[in-house]
């Protein structure tokens, strides 16, 4: 069907006549994005199940010869991540109210806190590796489950930091408006999702 041959009187249909049915793409994208996050939850759940299964198949936890994790350090690092969840929330709220400067400030704070969390995790990993001699492949099921799950989470945080940076640059270049900002909503949802996953991981690795 050649586009050029179409009669002009029907233009009103495409312009918003009776055939306009699906009002906004935002609705579709939001649903799709929530489904994406849900399937990501399932991916984490698979590994969390594996961890709990392996943990319960042994006699003691941590397994003999493995030092206890440093709960205090990880708790401070968690505070950093949860703080970034709060700043992200305020970033989006300020965008909705049109305060661009406050929005940018809170978003930059979120990115910085995210990087700080990753730095803390890097410190924890190196400490475990060099001082406690615990590694991914060489420390049995403890190393396998701890580094795989926290590593997956760290990867998600790293992706989030990149994603939020892209969002910051996009909003500076005027990609989003006060009414159309689905990317920012998605970024916020993703960041909260990463937070919530960390609540679970912190509980099952450090608290129980």
């Amino acid at each position, binding site marked *: *069907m050649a586009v050029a041959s179409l009669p002009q009187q*029907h233009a009103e249909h495409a312009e918003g006549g009776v055939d306009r049915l*699906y009002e906004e793409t935002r609705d579709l994208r939001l649903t799709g994005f929530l489904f994406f996050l849900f399937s990501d939850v399932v991916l984490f759940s698979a590994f969390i199940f594996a961890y709990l299964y392996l943990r319960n198949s042994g006699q003691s936890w941590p397994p003999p010869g493995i030092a206890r994790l440093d709960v205090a350090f990880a708790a401070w690092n968690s505070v950093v991540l949860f703080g970034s969840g709060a700043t992200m929330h305020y970033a989006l709220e300020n965008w909705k109210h049109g305060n661009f400067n406050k929005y940018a400030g809170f978003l930059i704070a979120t990115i910085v806190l995210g990087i700080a969390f990753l730095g803390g995790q890097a410190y924890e990993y190196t400490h475990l590796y060099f001082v406690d001699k615990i590694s991914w492949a060489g420390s049995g099921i403890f190393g396998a489950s701890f580094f795989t799950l926290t590593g997956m989470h760290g990867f998600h945080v790293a992706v989030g930091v990149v994603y939020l940076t892209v969002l910051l640059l996009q909003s500076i270049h005027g990609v989003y408006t006060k009414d159309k900002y689905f990317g920012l909503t998605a970024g916020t949802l993703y960041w909260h999702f990463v937070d919530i996953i960390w609540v679970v991981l912190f509980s099952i690795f450090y608290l129980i």
Partner: protein
Amino acid sequence: MAVAATHVGGGIADHVHPEPQGFIRRYVFSIDHKIIGIQYLITGFIFLVLAGLLAEVIRTQLMNANGGFVSNNTYNEVYSIHGSAMVWLVVIPLMTGAFGNFVMPLQIGARDVAFPWLNMISFWMFPLAGLMLFSSFLMGAPVAGWTEYPPMSLQGEAGTSMWCAAIFLVGISSTLTGMNFMVTILKMRAPGMTLTRMPLFVWAQLATAPLSMVATTALAGALAALFMERQFGVPFFDPTKGGSPLLWQHMFWFYSHPAVYIMILPAFGMISEILPTFARKPIFGYKMIAFSSVTIALAGFMVWAHHMFTSGLAPFMQLPFMLLTFVIAVPTGVKIFSWITTLWGGKIHFTSAMLFAIGFVVLFALGGITGIFLASVPTDLHLHGTYFVVAHFHYVLVGGSLMGIFAGFYYWFPKISGRMMNETLGKWHFWLFVAGFNGTFLPMHWLGFEGMPRRVAVYDPQFQFWNRVESVSSYVMTIAILLFFVNILVSLRRGKKAGPNPWKARTLEWQIPSPPHYYNFKHVPTVYGLPYDFSEPLPYRGLDDELTDAPAPVPAGAH
């Protein structure tokens, strides 16, 4: 996501964007759900031929009790890739990717799926994953069957890691398709099409999509763990390092049991469209059929350990899994009785599509009955790992899913191509296929009872007679499938013009020209009722222009 940019201001609105003119954008990297559906069909059929040839290698090897056609190790590679390819590259992509993509948006009165670009990306992962899977033959294919249980899969050659990567990739494709379909069905139905006015094929896709989305992601976790263990030595499954081989079985079957419903629910949907159309009678128990699909999908998540009764599962775990598995027979039985009641007193037209649909009901029921034997712990302890299991899942996957695919293909071919299939060849295809199928898989029941183990390249000579019957029958089945492909090629060139609605069917896709235009509907219709009331006028408004010369909608950006 990029799609929104192509029609500024309109959003998905009525989703008319200019049809791409170049060959590449139109037929290769197309974002049109109909083209993508056809791409899935062609690719799926190519993999069906390849995996079918592997099946014939298996059957030829088993002609003689002492084998001799291929080496024992090659035999192990062949059945592992045969199973993996049939499940992940043939049945699942054909059920969801091919028929789901082509038919579902038309049936709900949408112009496309929710995320057309994502749909294109999902498709292109699939042939790539197929190439990866078959390339594992070059580096030592996996030998532990399609289930790849450790520790054997940990010791397999490099091809086993390639297997992990290939299945991971096709799994992502399936997950993305599941999300896309969920959003499409939930958000893009034509006005008036409430959930309880949806055609049953759409209901089946709605029940399948969350399975693809959730279960496949869990499989991705299991595959990633196996890959990490094989490539980097990270211990999850190796018992010498504290891991647990049983963990793999849990993770694998948590996916793979729902996966059997991914492979059969869309077929249930197809049958529920075909039977009323050719019996000229409303479907019996519309809501029961729709809700039983959802029940099966939900219950499918709670029965995975019935595959593990001989794996050392604690006895207190065996009982609930056994009972829950029996419970799934209830919604399945509801469907079968509804289908039989639909046929009862109908004016039945025995077209090829109808023959395959009825064959589906019979053979799937037989496969379901043997499933009860395997679900009950005492008999499963005897039958596990024998040819009885092979008989059971080939009855549900070949007699069920593949027959469903054939039925659906005969039914929707006129819509896809605009031409009719040859009915004579179709009937030859059906009868040869059914004869060959039963000759191949029926004797496996008693061979299994007598203790013939599956997955072994040689066997006790006392089983040789029936194995020869099976092998010869399997060649008959191959000839039948060959006739099917001949029929497609002949009908594409010489088939009678189909017209918009050769079957006088009532769902939306039959009310528009065959093949449908790029934009599907000139005006998105309004729906007033169920599509199955054959005595009533069609429950749609706004379709008057579809078959006339009335102008098409103007693509956004063309004015």
